[in-house]
């Protein structure tokens, strides 16, 4: 049978395999709205905490927890209801990229907040979180684009 398969047919089959793999990879990509929503929730919560008013902090905490549950819940349900992508799709480079992203956010926001606090600036944590939010909104989709390319190049779903 293999001898009867024309090369263009085989190429077409490989294209189909890559197309289906891309369909699954798309499931793993965090949408842009997630970064915006998370950044807004974080900044809002930080502002509330720095007002130092118990009532404001209480309301903001509840809003933050509910907001995060809704945002992540939507994300998880979107994937769980359809398919679970293969665990090895990302590979070690992808995992490192994610850790690097998180470390980058912390490396930008924490020193900023501490430096501003030391300088006596008002709302130092909010400024740091705002910076973290900007990094998330700008770099989050870039990270997703990189991970998508990585997962497609990784030949996941086919021989490694």
């Amino acid at each position, binding site marked *: *049978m*293999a001898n009867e*398969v024309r*090369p*263009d047919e*085989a*190429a*077409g*089959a*490989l*294209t*189909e*395999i*890559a*197309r*289906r*793999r891309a*369909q*699954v*990879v798309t499931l793993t990509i965090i949408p842009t709205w997630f970064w915006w929503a998370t950044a807004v929730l974080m900044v809002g919560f930080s502002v509330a905490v720095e007002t130092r008013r118990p009532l404001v902090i209480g309301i903001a905490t509840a809003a933050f927890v509910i907001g995060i549950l809704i945002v992540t819940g939507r994300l998880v349900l979107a994937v769980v*209801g*359809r*398919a*679970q*992508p*293969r*665990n090895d*799709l990302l590979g070690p480079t992808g995992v490192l990229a994610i850790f690097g992203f998180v470390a980058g956010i912390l490396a930008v926001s924490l020193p900023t907040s501490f430096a501003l606090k030391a300088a006596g600036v008002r709302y130092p944590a909010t400024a740091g979180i705002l910076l973290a939010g900007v990094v998330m909104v700008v770099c989050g989709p870039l990270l997703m684009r990189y991970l998508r390319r990585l997962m497609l190049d990784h030949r*996941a*779903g*086919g*021989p490694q």
Partner: protein
Amino acid sequence: MIKPKFDELIHAPTRLSIVSLLAATEWADFKFIRDSIGLSDSALSKQLTTLEDAGYVEIRKGFVGKRPRTSARLTSFGRAAFDRHVVALQEIVARAGASVLPR
């Protein structure tokens, strides 16, 4: 090193699409496969049964709340067969030289 082996069962167009989709997942919901590939319930059931009979696919039936949910996953046997089939396809293309490349 994966030994190439052309697999007629996998190569049929609809089954190739199903197996390719499953190969990139740990498991996939019946509806997701159906909608992704554009099959009717009965057509997908038939193809999944064929793959299950060959030992390539495992079908799980369960409930989420009160709703029945069917999902499918590629068995290790099916995954190995798929990997060998992909290598066989790559060899056919490679033998033809650069004139035919996957799009």
